[in-house]
Each structure stands twice: as structure tokens, then as C-alpha cells.
């Protein structure tokens, strides 16, 4: 087990080093913002690694939970007088409860049926957010309160500009998320999840309560999605119902599978590449969809396990 532990720590150290050292190469503040977007997506895809990569359960509706997290931060401060930070935690709690409630019936479904059920859930959330304009501000979105942590940090002598602060905040959140997911991977619950992914019937016969474990993975990934939605809302100070939309769900599943669905660093790499790509393609804006679609197909056909695992295997093969 010592070998495995060190792999977990190695992964975390490499991730932390990348987060910490990248700013040295940033020519402008704009890059802090792109970095933050990568980390927010990185947090969401780490949750999907738990659900899709560990437990083998697909979801095309996790943006629905991101929507709950985002709108918790947008609405709770105004309506309930809650601090935005607490609203973020409240949103995560709410997402967890919602996931627990809908997960019980939904997770009895398999494969494409599970895909359509989760998709339905996500669409319902985004529809409510778009249509209840009286509360949510409707399709045009609404402003989000200031988190206020940056001024608190400034008061104790840590002066960061807005972009730098969010770079640090989202980066640390993503690292914490990665740590938790890596812990789970090598824990009793993580083994049971991965076992039911490979053979549900064998997992049952060794005593795994499959329904319960799937539900746990669903709730965990919902909390990840919710937190990432909250961070996005707080960082942008603005949110629209698109955060809960089908395309956002698909985008995150794509990042996860693209980078390597069974691997936390892989999925984060997927999030980085697919967050950067549209930025790089803005020059070729009219070709963006064409290239994005092509890359998605090519990677899935030629690198079935995703970018990182396939690259690692190729490197190992050469040694």
C-alpha cells in the first residue's frame, strides 16, 4: 500500500506545483481568470470521476446541481440574508439532499436509461431557473453578491487583486477536491464503487450494498458540481440559467471522459485542455465547433481511456 499512497501524494504534489507555478508564466491578469475557469471545471469533473469513473454511472444532468449551487449563492444572500460563503455550503447541502432524493429511483436505471433520466433532471432545473424570473431573474441572469473574503485577507496583509484572489481560491478548492477523490479511490468505499463498476453481481456477492454505494457516489458528485457552480457564480459576480443547462452537463462529461474518466488528474487535464481550446480557437471562431467536435471524436476513438491514461501507457511502453 505504501506504493499507492505515494502515487496519491505524487499526484497532489504535481497538481499543486502546477497551480502554484503557472502564474510565473502569465503575461497578464487575464490568464488568472482562465486559470480560475480551469479550476472550477476541474472541481466539477473530479466529482464526475467519482460517479462515472469509479462507480460507472453516467449522468447528463449534473449541471443541474451546478445550477443549484450557483443560484444558492445568487439568491440566499438577498432573500435569506445568508453570507455568500454560507450560501455556498447551503447550496452544497441542498444539492446533496436533492441528489439523495432523486438518486434512489434514478440509480436503478442503467446505461442510456440513466442518461435520459439525469438529463431530464438537469433540464427541469434549468427550466425552473429560466422561467421563474420573479425569483431568479430569468434567462437574462442576475447579479451575485461579493464573497468579501478578499477584503478580509487584505485586512490581514494579504493583498491580492481580484483575478489573483479567485485564482488562488478556485485552485485551492480544486486541490482539496482532488485530495478527497483520491482518498476515496483507495478507501473501502472507493474499492466497492470500482468493484460494482466492473461487475455488479460480483460486488453484490461479496456483500456490497450496490444501491447504497451508487447513491453515495451520486450525492458526492452532486456536491462537487454544486460547489463548482457556486464558485463560478461568486467569481463572475453574475449567473445565468445556462449554468444548469444540458450543454454545460455535456461539456463537463466530455472534459471528464476526454481526459480520462477513471483518473482524477486525467479529468483535470481534460478540463484544462477543453477550457483552453475555445480560448485558443477564438481566432478561428467560425471553425470552433468543427474543431471541437472533431477532437472529441478522435480522442474517444483513438484514446479510449482518455488523454492522460493513454499518454501514460505510451510512455510506459517506451521504457
Amino acid at each position: 500500500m505504501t506504493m499507492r499512497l505515494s502515487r496519491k501524494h505524487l499526484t497532489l504534489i504535481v497538481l499543486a506545483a502546477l497551480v502554484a507555478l503557472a502564474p510565473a508564466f502569465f503575461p497578464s491578469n487575464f490568464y488568472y481568470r482562465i486559470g480560475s475557469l480551469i479550476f472550477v471545471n476541474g472541481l466539477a469533473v473530479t466529482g464526475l470521476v467519482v460517479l462515472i469513473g469509479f462507480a460507472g454511472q453516467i449522468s447528463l444532468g449534473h449541471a443541474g446541481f451546478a445550477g443549484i449551487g450557483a443560484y444558492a449563492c445568487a439568491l440566499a444572500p438577498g432573500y435569506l440574508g445568508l453570507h455568500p460563503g454560507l450560501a455556498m455550503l447551503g447550496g452544497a447541502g441542498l444539492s446533496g439532499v436533492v441528489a439523495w432524493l432523486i438518486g434512489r429511483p434514478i440509480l436503478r436505471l442503467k446505461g442510456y436509461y440513466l442518461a435520459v433520466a439525469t438529463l431530464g433532471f438537469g433540464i427541469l432545473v434549468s427550466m425552473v431557473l429560466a422561467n421563474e424570473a420573479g425569483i431568479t431573474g430569468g434567462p437574462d441572469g442576475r447579479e451575485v453578491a461579493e464573497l468579501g473574503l478578499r477584503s478580509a485577507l487584505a485586512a490581514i496583509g494579504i493583498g491580492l487583486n481580484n483575478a489573483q484572489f479567485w485564482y488562488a481560491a478556485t485552485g485551492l478548492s480544486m486541490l482539496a477536491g482532488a485530495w478527497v477523490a483520491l482518498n476515496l479511490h483507495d478507501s473501502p468505499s472507493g474499492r466497492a464503487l470500482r468493484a460494482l463498476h466492473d461487475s455488479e453481481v460480483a460486488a453484490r456477492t461479496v456483500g456490497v450494498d450496490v444501491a447504497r454505494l451508487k447513491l453515495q457516489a451520486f450525492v458526492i458528485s452532486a456536491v462537487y458540481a454544486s460547489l463548482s457552480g457556486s464558485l463560478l457564480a461568486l467569481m463572475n459576480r453574475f449567473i445565468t440559467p445556462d449554468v444548469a443547462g444540458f450543454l454545460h452537463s455535456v461539456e463537463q462529461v466530455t472534459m471528464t471522459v476526454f481526459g480520462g474518466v477513471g483518473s482524477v488528474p486525467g479529468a483535470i487535464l481534460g478540463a484544462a485542455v477543453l477550457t483552453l481550446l475555445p480560448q485558443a480557437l477564438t481566432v478561428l471562431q467560425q471553425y470552433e465547433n468543427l474543431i471541437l467536435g472533431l477532437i472529441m471524436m478522435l480522442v474517444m476513438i483513438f484514446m479510449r481511456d482518455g488523454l492522460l491514461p493513454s499518454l501514460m501507457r505510451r510512455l510506459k511502453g517506451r521504457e
Partner: protein
Amino acid sequence: MTLLSVEGVGIDFGGLRAVNDVGFSVSPGEIVSIIGPNGAGKTTLFNMISGVYRPQRGRIALDGTDVTGMAPNRLAERGLSRTFQNLQIFQRMSVLENVMTGCHLRERGPVLGDLLSLPSSRRRSAATSARANALLERVGLARAAEREASSLSYGALKRLEIARALALEPRILLLDEPAAGCNAVETEEIDHLIAEVAKSGVAILLVEHDMKMVMRISGHIVVLDRGEKIAEGAPATVSRNPKVIEAYLGTQAAEAGDAVG
């Protein structure tokens, strides 16, 4: 001193009577074999006993408690463990992790502890790892512990499944063709392993095509043909039963006589 008792169980698939009115019992430390030609319903019977299928007729009791139709994980909690004819390995996990998962009932704990890697969770994992390593030693797979399970040979996977089933510390172990695809040396090792496990008081229910092995280690044999029990008894009695020779051994009677002799 009956541990498992099966009474008149049956199940139909579509219009087909896959298993009908089969009954027998197994005691602690006893090795009972189920034999019969392909399609006789042996694996279906296994699937009913281990809770994978719910029997449509009859009753299954474990240690006196009715467990008919109980979910496999609940049966596992009651000490029933099994292997699979066509292998149900956790492919993407290491050999060691496969066996560790077999210890699930012993190592499971609050998921929050697992997420935060609390000391209690780490302790459970460490204890399981030690136990799993010992089991791998026992089935001769210690050197492959860190390899990905899918990279093992067929015979090694069979032994891995037995190790995983044993990790549960079962009171009754169902083995579905444990020696299939194994060479003579491996078969003999499995043979010894089964006898050893039985000696420690575990009840064993075996489906196996290797007649030599069945005759050598079973205390009791149940013969199925087309879903029905056609005979049962001690190996010597069963092998002389004309019904068995006709239905099961059929044209291979000479070969079977050879196997029994």
C-alpha cells in the same frame, strides 16, 4: 447440523423449466457436488441459492432461516460466498484490490471517513490489505498482487476468484467450476485448497466437470438432468446408478467408468 437446505426450488425462463423441484442439504465441513450435463441447470441453481435469481418455487434456508429470494449482499452478510463459472473479476483493479474487496463486509465504514482518509479508514484498509496478501499467498498469487487483474491467465483468475470468495470468511462457499481451464497441477492445487477450506468447517457446494476431482473430494453428489434431480448419494453409489450413467454419462459411459475406476 444442516447449514444450507434447499427444498423443492424451481424457476422457469419463458416457457422453459430451467430448474424444477430440486432439494438437498449441506452441512458445515461437507463438500457437496452438483453434477450433470451442460444445460442441466447447475449454474441456475447456484444463481438461486446465491440470490442472483429469485426462485419461483420452493424454499432455501441458511442456518434455519428462510433466505429465499434474499439479495446477494444480504446473503453475503450471512456468510454465503461464491465464485462464477464465467469469471466476474474486477478487471480494472489490481489483484490485491480484488481480494480486498472480498473483505468489504469487514472493512466497510462511514463514507465520510473514507473521503477524508481519517485514521480509522486507513486502519481498516491496512488491516484488509494484510489479510488479502495472506490469502493471495495461500492461492499462490502473492507475486502478482500489484498487477492489474485483467493481465492474469485464466487459471490464475480462477484462483483469484476463490481467494476473493474466501476473503469474506464464508460459512458456505459456492464454487462454480473452479478447475475449468486449469492444467493438472493447478487443478490439484485447487483440489487441496478446497479440501483444506472444508476441513476448517466451511460448507462447500461445488459444480465441476472434472469427474476425477468430483469423485475424489466430494462427500455427497447431487445429479441434475434437464433441471431435475435424478439421483444423489455418495460418489461410489452415484457413479453406479444406471439412471446417472444413462442420462449424464450416456455415450461416454466407458470414459466415465474409467474416470470413476
